[in-house]
């Protein structure tokens, strides 16, 4: 199949670090063909295939849904499969690993911290009396009930929000935007009864209360999840819990 002919070249300055070599991190410059339809990931794949097989990064779906290919592109966390070269051309593009994470190698960051936090918020449906038998069919859920958590369910775990979050940058114990949004996704689901058991983690000091509402998380989210809104909602309902417990003890815990 014919490709569009390249139209000049574009320069990429890419962060390089290899733990095996014991060298200091550095930037390496590559000149790649400029194509109108290429995204930064295409340019990086070109480098890997044609120029330098040692360049190391993650990618898979190249359609903005697997969440693998987040990188700092000119200082802003983005999915490299959704950042078009034409938005930067003819200026050079600087590509770095997502900020706020330990770097494994080149553009690959360590995700373990998030995976642990994800698990800690119990991201599954909790039923007090257990799941009902399949023979009783589905739980009914109106479109309006679905709409209450829908946006929070769109998180692809791409880590752009953690990379943009100044609080997470300073305090790694902070639960962080995506994990809180996902906790809220289940809390708001009409089928779920697990909010009180999630609260121990979410309403702790390391949970929602560290967030200072800078809102960078929502600004960089490629899927419009709006984690800042999730945190706001969670703070509000935790405050109500506190009032109910402390000021109106007869009201009981939800």
């Amino acid at each position, binding site marked *: *199949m*014919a*490709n*569009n002919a390249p139209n000049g070249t574009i320069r990429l300055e890419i962060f390089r670090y*290899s733990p*095996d*070599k014991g060298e200091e991190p550095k930037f390496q410059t590559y000149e790649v063909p400029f194509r109108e*339809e290429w995204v930064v990931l295409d340019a990086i794949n070109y480098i*890997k*295939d*044609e120029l*330098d*097989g*040692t360049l*190391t*990064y*993650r*990618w*898979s*779906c*190249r*359609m*903005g*849904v*697997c*969440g*693998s290919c987040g990188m700092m592109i000119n200082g802003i966390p983005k999915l490299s499969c*959704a950042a078009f070269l034409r938005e930067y051309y003819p200026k050079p593009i600087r590509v770095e690993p997502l900020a706020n994470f330990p770097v*494994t*190698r080149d553009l*690959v960051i360590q*995700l373990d911290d998030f*995976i642990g936090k994800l*698990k800690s918020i*119990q*991201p*599954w*449906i909790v039923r007090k009396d257990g*799941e*009902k038998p*399949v023979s009783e069919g*589905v*739980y*009914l*859920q*109106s*479109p309006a*009930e*679905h709409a209450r*958590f*829908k946006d929070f*369910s*769109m*998180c*692809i*775990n791409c880590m752009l929000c953690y990379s943009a979050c100044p609080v997470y940058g300073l305090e790694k114990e902070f639960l962080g935007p995506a994990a809180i949004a*996902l906790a809220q996704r*289940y809390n708001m689901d009409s*089928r*779920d009864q697990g909010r009180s058991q999630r609260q121990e983690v979410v309403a702790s000091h390391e949970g929602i209360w560290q967030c200072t509402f800078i809102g960078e998380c929502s600004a960089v989210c490629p899927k419009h999840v709006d984690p800042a809104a999730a945190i706001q909602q969670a703070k509000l309902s935790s405050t109500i819990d506190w009032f109910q417990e402390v000021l109106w003890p007869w009201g009981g815990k939800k």
Partner: protein
Amino acid sequence: MESHEYDVVIVGGGGAGLRAAIELGESFPKLRIAVVSKVYPMRSHTVAAEGGAAAVIKSNDSLENHCHDTVSGSDWLGDQDVIETFVKEAPDELIRMEHWGCPWSREPNGQVAVRPFGGMVIERTWFAADKTGFHMLHTLYQTALKFQSLKWYDEWFVTKLLVDNGRCQGVAAIELLTGQLHAILGKAVILCTGGAGRLFPFTTNGAIKTGDGMFLAYQAGVALKDMEFVQYHPTGLPGSGILITEAARGEGGILTNKDGYRYLQDYGLGPPEPFRKRAMELGPRDRLSQAFVQEEAKGRTISTPFGSAVYLDLRHLGEATINKKLPFVRELSKNYAGIDPVYKPIPVRPVIHYVMGGVDTDVEGATVVPGLYAAGECACISLNGANRLGSNSLTELLVFGRRAAHAAAQFAAENPALASEKLKAQASDEQERIASQFIRKQGGNERVATLRLELNRLMEAGAGIYRSGDGLQKACSGIAALKDRFRNVALDDRSLSYNTELISVLELEFLLDIGQSLLHSALCRTESRGSHQRTDHTARDDQKFLKHSMAYRTDAEPRIEYKDVVITRWPPKERVYGK
């Protein structure tokens, strides 16, 4: 050699692997389970499925209908016992997904909604807008996190099955982070590694779809079944190959040629009016992709910088419906094609999407190697035959992921002993093979990317939508030559930690063998059936080929044998659409 012992080892953390993991965690909580995946599970390609998952749930539908649609969709190459099992268990599986939180789209009364899909006589496809695979994958992953018996090996790449005394007892796997190879032993192993769309240059499949499990089983002596059947999805974006879901047509989208004419009516799928199922744009994928090629030959397609295309027109659906039912289609079209489907038709062309063939298994997911199971796209349980119907595969992951888990758990209970020392010795040999062939190798001048590109081109030229004996013969010689050149491959990257070039070369090694099995199976099938269309043998030949192709690995070319198709209640008939 570090080693770890489990009861069951699952390879792959996509839909099938996670469904198997949940079943083991829930029904067999005492078993220790390893989930070994080359990517973090939520990156698995299940994530990219869009349109939906089929199961009979509405009172106007029937199991009989779903069976018949699947049998005829398969061009009678599906095993009917498997199809009946699948159709019967499908509704319970989707209900369980609902219980686990999958955000299925709903009707106003709170019941799940269903939409029409290609080749189905009635609407039965459950959906979560047009991100069904994404929602299913994340629901499964997050649900699986609750089970303490599951040990996650994220970003570990399996290079070989460990087989002793004819029985599979684990895997050799490289930890990407450190580059160290470990022996992960298990009393049973389930392969859930997905398809092999990356054999081809133009595909909806992500980079990770390199047929790993297919190769592992093939190398261990299991046949790859029906590999010649490869699905072209009729509507991909030219250039990138990004999928535009069949749900776009399920919701009423139409396909037109350069003159605005609904050309499918010329290819046995019409007449266009009135709107009905199993007709026109809601015909099966193989027929629609073949119609495109014929329309192209008549000069009635449009040309784009990335090859010819036709139009997928959604404008008449209106902005509200597009936003509600097809938001991802709109996002992808705008971002990657610069087209807003609310105002303009989307240029689309057929694109490699799914491999119907795979690891030969029975209805429990068991292979001929004791202790080895497979499920999902890497398996060929013979649900899909010569052409898969859209929205059957997401359900397939669940039904057969669960069944394989049960069979593997039972096998593990009955076969507790592991030949640990011998297995570890095998893993040591494997580590040495990889080190000497790739990491420490001196000389060699072939690049991974060059060989991969040549393989891609050769597969497309030889085994595209229409095939010929001559073309296949040429491709078979070509791939043999590529395998010779592969011996001369050399890596730029000789590091241990996170060596993605090493993973790429191992994947290429797998693809070369799988591609060869596909080409030889296609060459030997001198008939046209479903997605396998031969220009030199244009008719279906039930006398000779109502059979599954079985490709066995040898030191030279694959050996092709045949196995009967299971027919229960639907004897072979002509495949009719558009009526």
